[in-house]
């Protein structure tokens, strides 16, 4: 951190918050709120005079509340810049008449109670998102008694208690009586790998952290007895198995089973841990002086704000979703944005450094080239047809379309550097004013018409997205899975491209069944485009019902590239549905939709026209 702070080409903006991000790769404008510190960070020499006179003491967040700090303080010993900051919520000196003792004590006049928050705009080409994570609060697991029993602490609190720069200067003691604990229990997976309480995924770092803690205890206090209660130890990294072995050799006992209850002896404050030892197959009770809960890792509480600022999506776990889990693991779906550390998923220091290095390299490549290669598949707006409704700008998952202004006759503009080519805008445009290059309406309609030119009642029209469902069908084929052959596949980049008119045209031409298929929500390659697909299909079901067409004839499936088996099963189900659609039903549908189309065409003739072709070439 010191190195970064001193680097001539790195500007650290501490005590700051990103409030707005505008633009696109190569041209981001980031608005940063620089919060008032009330201390001149350039002049302050951290002499400590102000701290000595400050009368306010509040719990020290860095020390997990085990010690106190003053209202004027340095957040942690290695913080950069190494200067004081005033916690104005706790300070009495907002009105210098009330206190102002730090002001008097500071010989260099560094303190300024009139300091204000400032907003600065930064022009940057790329952004690396390294916003970290939060830890799980185990209070809700009442049987472990966290906050009820003084000697039940979390792994984060353990770190402070045993650290030389901690509140006890590394003299490990238990909170209830400040005596050194001789029997310590560690409970793993607290708030992790649980569907009911906490999160379902593995915290990734807790096993190795506990192993390290047992070694620390064995090193500092060889007479301490450590017991680790676990489901299974995940020591998967380089050198980790060796560390695990050393921990066991150093005397740590590993007991397979998560405790069901902790009970405190009110007098001694000792803790009795009741556990089913699944290796021995018996119920056990262990009396301990202290219990450490290895708490899980959760996404940051303000992660939704970051996602909104940078137009990012999340995985089912709530962490930021990468562009591709194998091929672009540090890239965000929005071009020019990269991830490092636990914002993307829980990881240890080594993996965080690895990912940060990769992110810096990926950002460096873009910046050194000075130009970006964009997709050929982008959208284009025809000003003659646009009615300024702004629907395209609203649905774009990348904010790649500027909102139009009807009064100023300002057409929406497609920022091609930001457009990823999902085609949701084209599918949602009510006047067909948007052309999706390489996946135009004419091209897709021509495929539908060709498939249904002969024996349409035998064909099932399937729209499959490029990234998941289409490869899923490929996998079914290469796996030699057997399924009916009535499906006729039309590939689109995203299921979001499948416009209402494609589906209705297929029914009008005699298709008995239509399937729209895309990525699972958590896998969507276009942030949230798949959600617009679902909304559109739900509307279509309603519309079909109103028109007198059975909604069951329009099917929706989320099929990943790895689900060849699901693809085959869906085809078999669709074939069963197809057999139930009679020729009479198809004929009636054709008649209804032909009438509907004639009505729409008549209505469209009276529509106003505006502007010229708008597309900003980047």
């Amino acid at each position: 951190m010191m190195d970064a702070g001193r680097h001539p080409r790195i500007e650290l903006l501490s005590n700051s918050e990103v409030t707005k991000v505008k633009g696109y790769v190569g041209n981001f404008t980031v608005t940063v709120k620089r919060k008032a510190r009330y201390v001149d960070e350039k002049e302050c020499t951290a002499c400590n005079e102000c701290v000595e006179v400050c009368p306010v003491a509040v719990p020290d967040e860095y020390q997990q509340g085990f010690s106190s700090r003053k209202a004027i303080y340095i957040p942690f010993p290695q913080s950069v810049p190494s200067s004081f900051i005033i916690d104005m919520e706790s300070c009495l000196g907002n009105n210098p008449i009330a206190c102002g003792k730090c002001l008097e004590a500071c010989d260099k006049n560094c303190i300024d109670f009139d300091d204000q928050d400032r907003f600065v705009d930064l022009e940057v080409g790329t952004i690396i998102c390294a916003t970290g994570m939060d830890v799980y609060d185990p209070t809700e697991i009442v049987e472990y008694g966290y906050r009820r029993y003084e000697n039940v602490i979390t792994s984060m609190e353990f770190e402070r208690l045993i650290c030389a720069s901690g509140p006890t200067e590394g003299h490990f003691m238990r909170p209830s009586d400040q005596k050194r604990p001789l029997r310590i229990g560690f409970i793993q997976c607290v708030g992790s790998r649980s569907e009911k309480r906490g999160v379902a995924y593995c915290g990734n770092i807790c096993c190795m952290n506990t192993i390290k803690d047992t070694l620390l205890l064995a090193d500092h206090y060889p007479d301490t007895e450590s017991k680790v209660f676990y489901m299974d130890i995940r020591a998967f990294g380089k050198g980790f198995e060796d560390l695990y072995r050393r921990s066991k050799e150093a005397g740590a006992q590993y007991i397979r089973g998560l405790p069901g209850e902790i009970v405190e002896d009110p007098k001694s404050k000792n803790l009795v841990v009741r556990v089913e030892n699944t290796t021995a197959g018996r119920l056990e009770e262990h009396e301990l002086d202290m219990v450490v809960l290895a708490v899980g890792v959760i996404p940051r509480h303000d992660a939704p704000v970051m996602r909104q600022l940078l137009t990012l999506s999340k995985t089912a776990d709530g962490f930021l979703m990468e562009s591709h889990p194998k091929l672009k693991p540090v890239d965000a779906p929005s071009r020019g944005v990269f991830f490092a550390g636990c914002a993307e998923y829980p990881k240890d220091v080594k993996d965080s450094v690895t990912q940060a290095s990769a992110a810096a390299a990926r950002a460096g490549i873009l910046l050194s080239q000075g130009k970006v290669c964009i997709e050929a598949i982008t959208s284009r707006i025809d000003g003659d047809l646009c009615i300024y409704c702004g629907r395209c700008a609203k649905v774009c998952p990348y904010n790649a379309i500027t909102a139009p202004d009807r009064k100023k006759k300002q057409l929406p503009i497609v920022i091609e550097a930001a457009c990823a080519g999902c085609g949701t805008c084209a599918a949602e445009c009510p006047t067909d004013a948007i052309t999706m290059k390489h996946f135009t309406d004419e091209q897709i309609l021509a495929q539908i018409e060709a498939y249904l030119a002969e024996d349409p009642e035998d064909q099932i029209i399937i729209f499959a997205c490029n990234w998941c469902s289409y490869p899923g069908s490929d996998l079914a084929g290469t796996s030699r899975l057997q399924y009916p052959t009535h499906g006729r596949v039309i590939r689109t980049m995203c299921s979001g491209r499948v416009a209402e008119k494609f589906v209705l045209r297929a029914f009008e031409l005699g298709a008995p069944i239509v399937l729209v298929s895309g990525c699972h929500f958590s896998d969507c390659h276009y942030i949230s485009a798949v959600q617009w697909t679902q909304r559109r299909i739900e509307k279509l079901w309603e519309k079909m019902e109103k028109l007198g067409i059975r909604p069951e004839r329009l099917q929706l499936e989320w099929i990943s590239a790895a689900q060849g088996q699901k693809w085959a099963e869906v085809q078999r189900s669709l074939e069963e549905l197809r057999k139930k659609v009679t020729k009479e039903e198809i004929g009636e549908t054709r008649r209804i939709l032909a009438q509907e189309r004639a009505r729409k065409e008549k209505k469209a003739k009276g529509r106003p026209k505006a502007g010229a072709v708008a597309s900003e070439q980047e």
Partner: protein
Amino acid sequence: MPGEADFVCLRCGAHFKMPYEESEGPKERACPECKSNSVRRVKEKK
């Protein structure tokens, strides 16, 4: 407590209840019977 709504599977015709919040965006749903994603919310008739 999250709200619930009635859903119908457009593949197998099964009727079932699932968590549903009007304010939340679309969610991936699957029929508990046939696992199809062609799941439609049954709106209350006014």
